């Protein structure tokens, strides 16, 4: 998929656990100990109730395709067309990602299709959480 390297994330102290997780093959979310709210992106407090008492947990890695575009514009790291998606995780939070193991067409990319996380190692330090259709490539 990639030609040159894609823009890589630079973890901060608040997000390091997430990127440590993807490197270890885990999708890590956070849950508030006070109000049970599950959220993303990472931060060391609850965006729902402001509590600092939050914990990291391993998410199921399952979700559904909420929306996407299929980009046709040139990008140094990709051969267009490719889809940029918003995935809603079973635990609630949403994240941007790419859908892999699947044609990048409106016919193949059906909204609400179930997805499973697949980690792609893109550097020594970073693995990105991508998603594939649940049940394997189709």
């Amino acid at each position, binding site marked *: 998929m990639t030609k040159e390297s894609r*823009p890589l994330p630079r973890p901060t102290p608040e997000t390091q656990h997430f990127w440590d997780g993807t490197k270890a093959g885990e999708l890590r979310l956070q849950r508030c100990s006070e109000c049970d709210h599950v959220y993303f992106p990472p931060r060391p407090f609850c965006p729902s109730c402001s509590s600092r008492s939050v914990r990291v947990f391993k998410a199921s890695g399952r979700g559904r395709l909420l929306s*996407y575009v299929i980009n046709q514009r040139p990008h140094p790291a990709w051969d267009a067309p*490719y889809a*940029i998606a918003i995935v809603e995780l079973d635990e609630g939070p949403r994240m*941007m990602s*790419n859908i892999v193991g699947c044609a990048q067409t*409106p016919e193949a990319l059906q909204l609400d299709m179930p997805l499973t996380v697949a980690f792609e190692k893109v550097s020594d330090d970073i693995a990105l959480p991508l998603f594939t259709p649940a049940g394997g490539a189709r």
Partner: protein
Amino acid sequence: MSSVAIVGAAETTELGVIPNMSQLQLHADAALNALADAGLTAADIDGVATAGESPTAIAHYLGITPEWVDGTQVGGCSFMIHVRHAVAAIQQGLCKTVLITHGESGRSRIGAGNFRGGGGSATLAGQFESPYGVVGPPTMFTLPVLRYMKDYGMTHEQLAMVAVVQREWASKNPRASFRELITVEDVLKSRMIAYPFHLLECCLVTDGGGALILVSGERAADFPRKPVYVIGTGESVETPMVSQMEDLTSSRAFRVAGQRAMTSAGISHDDVHHMMIYDAFAHLPIYGLEDLGFCQRGEAASFIWEGNTRPGGKLPLNTNGGGLSYMHSGMYGMYALQESVRQLRGVAPAQVPGAEISLCLGVGGMFGASGCVVMSNIGP
């Protein structure tokens, strides 16, 4: 609380491709035109608000010694928010005569910074959006729309119709970048940019600027132009990441800013004669009409399809041709405000007969922020 009025309003002398002016000079060109419009000079200005450049740079360049400045920069609706803040500053006596400027060398990139979606690689957008291949607004602002289409049954043809109607308005405007009438088929045959968005459903990229001058309502009669009173305002922000919108079919910032603006103006939907909704992409008027309650959920595309926002329709919308056909420098909000002022002065190229109340809704970022201004040519 005393009223505040817009007594000077102007765009840059030229719009479109302006390779002979830096971004800073585009601000100044618009500011000088607005000062002339109001019969003032820079020496009369004691408040400066701007985005894209700092208020410091604008004040120094124009020779202004301000006692109040506002550099709120939340994207293309920053100027709506500047209007709101200027109203409060004038009412509180912090300053008397506010100049709001915009200038952007969006196309020629003369003296302009580079647009970098998402910011640095350690920001949240840099970590959680940039790695997935986003290429500027056409791949981000557009992301929620398939969800809207599935949830409400909006068709590709209905989305295309937004561009068709706005071109109809632009055809009446000699300053519009694109004036030739188009059909739904033309839109759907234009180059795919990011499915489901075709080229003609995406805004232009042009050069230009605009400026406004505001004073207290008591002083408004002393100026040469018909005053346009600011009767209601609202502002809000939601998220710097489109993937984190609470609801992909609705903008929280639109809802908060729009409701506050209409409530503070004391108006109902039927009172609005003319409307501007910042249209960086074709879905924005649909979201705006629903989020402000002009249409029920899922009904705005049909409302536009049926001709309600066209010339002669019951709710004239984006009457300059909008960001899709008039111009779009990057932070388009200033041009939407300018068109509201022209309509309420009665001097718009595609004038809405008898328009007395105009509502102008701006967006910033990718559904990240919003500012809303309700204006009237009837004094308090």
